[in-house]
């Protein structure tokens, strides 16, 4: 312990300017949030980027101060205890990386009016995530002292950080993206721990380089290529009330609520499939997560359309106990043309989430944030767009469907996806996540100055298989849009 402290003090003396700079960046990052909720230019990214670069530079300097690779370093023939050395580096990381970020986050959430008690879990989990992300940087920094290697390393780190943070953006299966992210981060964390122990205890650089390469490949594979049914199965396993959807039945409707298309890089036939969902329990609503289809022709030819092919799912209108989900699936043109006019058999699996237990709170529609359910704070910008409602939450957007409703108009959803992650924070330096929705849906502008925020919690993550015979594909592919890359858009009605 004494030796650890001694090495730590030496490292601080060595890197006092860089360490101070990280603290300054963290302070600047916190200070950017003092400008108030209405400054949406979000220039806080600048100190955030500087903070990231400062942290990377700090790690790139503190680890090679007692470099592991090589045979000329003075310290390897001195009576260093490996646990003390490793402990000193970790302590340095905590004091000069985690602590400033931790304090900056506390400042931001407290200034924003979140109560400390309500965010403590998110705050701590956020620290753990940051630490778990930074530890691999420390581990990989032990593998070489060459500057190009360090630069490549931090390029990879920035990319991983970007990927992890982009997990909060909307995308296919983004509700369960946390599963692959968590497993990938765990793999990276275990790899880092193994490398650190091996390097500091035995200085086995060659073995550790192999381990690092394997760990990176494994992490990338888990992150990119984890089968989505596995992620959905994990999510389903975590459901609390799976019996809730026992009466739900899925079928194919012929009522086209909405047709939509989006450009594709490869020529594809776009199928617009209205999926009907019947037997939805009272007080709940269905949110689609994924759809997988299998089409089989009468001559036995079969094509599979996975969740990636059917990534565009929209919940349409519905009546009591029923809803329609508009799905857009991309089909190989050769199959479509071969089966055009012939009946095919459609087998599908719909993965969806039942939301319910709605709670609502009416708050004044003002520029000042007001507390809303589930730790949200909501406000508007009367100068910019008086019907737009902004809600913010600390450390992550709650795993809830959130709506804003003005007077007696329809409620509008905060459009971005909902992550079903059970963890209280996501991997991000910025502790505040803000989303917006229009509170005013249709009809004459209301005169009320209150907005009602409605939240529904996920009750069950379910999968229902369905089977439809004698499907005529041309009924669902009308109009079919071919889009080829770099060519003028062409619409062809078949």
């Amino acid at each position: 312990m004494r030796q650890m402290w001694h090495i730590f003090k030496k490292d601080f003396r060595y890197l006092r300017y860089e360490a101070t700079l990280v603290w300054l960046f963290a302070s600047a990052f916190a200070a950017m949030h003092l400008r108030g909720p209405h400054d949406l230019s979000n220039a806080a990214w600048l100190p955030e980027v500087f903070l990231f670069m400062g942290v990377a530079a700090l790690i790139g300097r503190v680890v090679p101060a007692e470099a592991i690779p090589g045979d000329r370093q003075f310290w390897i023939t001195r009576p260093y205890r490996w646990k003390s050395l490793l402990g000193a580096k970790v302590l340095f990381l905590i004091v000069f990386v985690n602590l400033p970020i931790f304090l900056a986050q506390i400042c931001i959430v407290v200034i924003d009016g979140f109560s400390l008690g309500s965010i403590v879990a998110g705050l701590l989990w956020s620290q753990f995530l940051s630490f778990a992300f930074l530890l691999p940087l420390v581990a990989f920094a032990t593998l070489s002292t060459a500057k190009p290697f360090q630069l490549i390393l931090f390029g990879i780190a920035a990319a991983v950080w970007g990927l992890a943070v982009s997990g909060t953006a909307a995308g296919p299966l983004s509700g369960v993206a946390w599963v692959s992210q968590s497993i990938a981060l765990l793999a990276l964390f275990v790899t880092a721990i193994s490398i650190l122990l091996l390097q500091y205890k035995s200085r086995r650089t060659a073995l550790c380089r192999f381990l690092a390469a394997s760990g990176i490949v494994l992490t990338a594979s888990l992150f990119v290529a984890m089968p989505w049914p596995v992620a959905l199965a994990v999510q389903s396993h975590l459901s609390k009330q799976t019996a809730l959807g026992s009466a739900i039945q899925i079928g194919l409707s012929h009522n086209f609520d909405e047709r939509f298309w989006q450009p594709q890089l490869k020529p594809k036939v776009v199928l617009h499939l209205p999926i009907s969902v019947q037997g939805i329990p009272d007080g709940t609503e269905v949110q689609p997560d994924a759809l997988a289809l299998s089409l089989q022709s009468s001559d036995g030819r079969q094509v599979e359309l996975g969740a990636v092919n059917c990534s565009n799912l929209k919940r349409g209108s519905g009546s009591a106990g029923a809803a329609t989900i508009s799905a857009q699936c991309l089909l190989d043109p050769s199959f479509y043309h071969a089966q055009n006019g012939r009946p095919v058999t459609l087998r599908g699996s719909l993965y969806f989430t039942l939301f319910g237990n709605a709670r609502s709170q009416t708050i004044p529609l003002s520029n000042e944030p007001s507390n809303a359910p589930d730790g949200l704070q909501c406000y508007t910008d009367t100068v910019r767009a008086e019907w737009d409602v902004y809600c913010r939450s600390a450390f992550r957007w709650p795993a809830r469907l959130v709506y804003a409703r003005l007077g007696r108009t329809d409620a509008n959803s905060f459009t971005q996806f909902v992550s079903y992650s059970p963890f209280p924070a996501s991997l991000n330096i910025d502790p505040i996540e803000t989303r917006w929705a229009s509170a005013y849906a249709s009809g004459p502008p209301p005169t009320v100055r209150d907005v009602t925020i409605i939240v529904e919690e996920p009750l069950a993550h379910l999968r229902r298989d369905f089977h439809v015979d004698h499907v005529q594909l041309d009924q669902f592919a009308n109009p079919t849009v071919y889009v080829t890359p770099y060519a003028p858009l062409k619409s062809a009605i078949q």
Partner: protein
Amino acid sequence: MSGLICATDLVKRFRSVRVLDGLNLTVAEGSVFGLAGPNGAGKTTTIKILMNILRPTSGHAEVLGVDSRALGPETLANIGYVSENQELPEWMTVEYLLAYLKPFYPTWDNARAAQLIRQFDLPLHRQLRHLSRGMRMKVALASSLAYRPRLLIMDEPFSGLDPLMREDLIDGLLESADETTILISSHDLAEIESFASHIGYLDRGRLQLSEEMTSLTARFREVEVIVDSPPLVPLDRPWPAHWLRPETAPALIRFVETHFDAERTTAEIRQLFGDVRNISASPMPLRAIFVTLARNALKTDGSQAA
């Protein structure tokens, strides 16, 4: 005297290159052991294995009674290490380096450190990056002697230093020699000769010779024999194995006697050459001894290859 360093059958390969080829080495406690040998002989590799910087491919080495592969902080606290290639923390001042290292060594002696600072005239407030090579070696040596180590291992410490610096370093070493066993590698034999008590000659990964300096210098003599007439014995006749590098001229025979004993050597000469006018036996400097050994080894290898 017991061995503070014992290496047995050490082998080290770097890919296909066999740098150490069954090295056996013992360094007795209290000795100043000079490890000599040409460049590439394996001196630095040997030392790095002893210090657990490298792992041997096979074989075994013990330092202060501990397996070299298991050298831990407790053992290292009793070992000083100075190397020409060592990378010191250049941002530190001399004063901070010494202050930083002090808590690592329970036996650190402030008075000894102060004495070394004075003796080596170390600029305490200057960063190591601003010191000359010789001054850095002095700092490294001072930081390795201040805790009075039982064993001091030095790898080519005099390489590239001017004579004054060498003299200062040697003086510093000699003052510690009574309490510290020293293993010092060098290809500068003249320096080793001046203070080593034992000498080992390493060549092609093997220790070709290892013995006390006094014994070595006593048994090696360059012998010149002046004869009146051509020798009775043809010169192509096999010579005694302990006579190396024989050379002849019409009235002169010259060779290196590797087991010199005045009476026995004289008797052997007279037995081979009959009456001779004069026999002179001159002591050899270490450099000449090792040149003789190296050339003989090359010749032996050549004849074996043939």
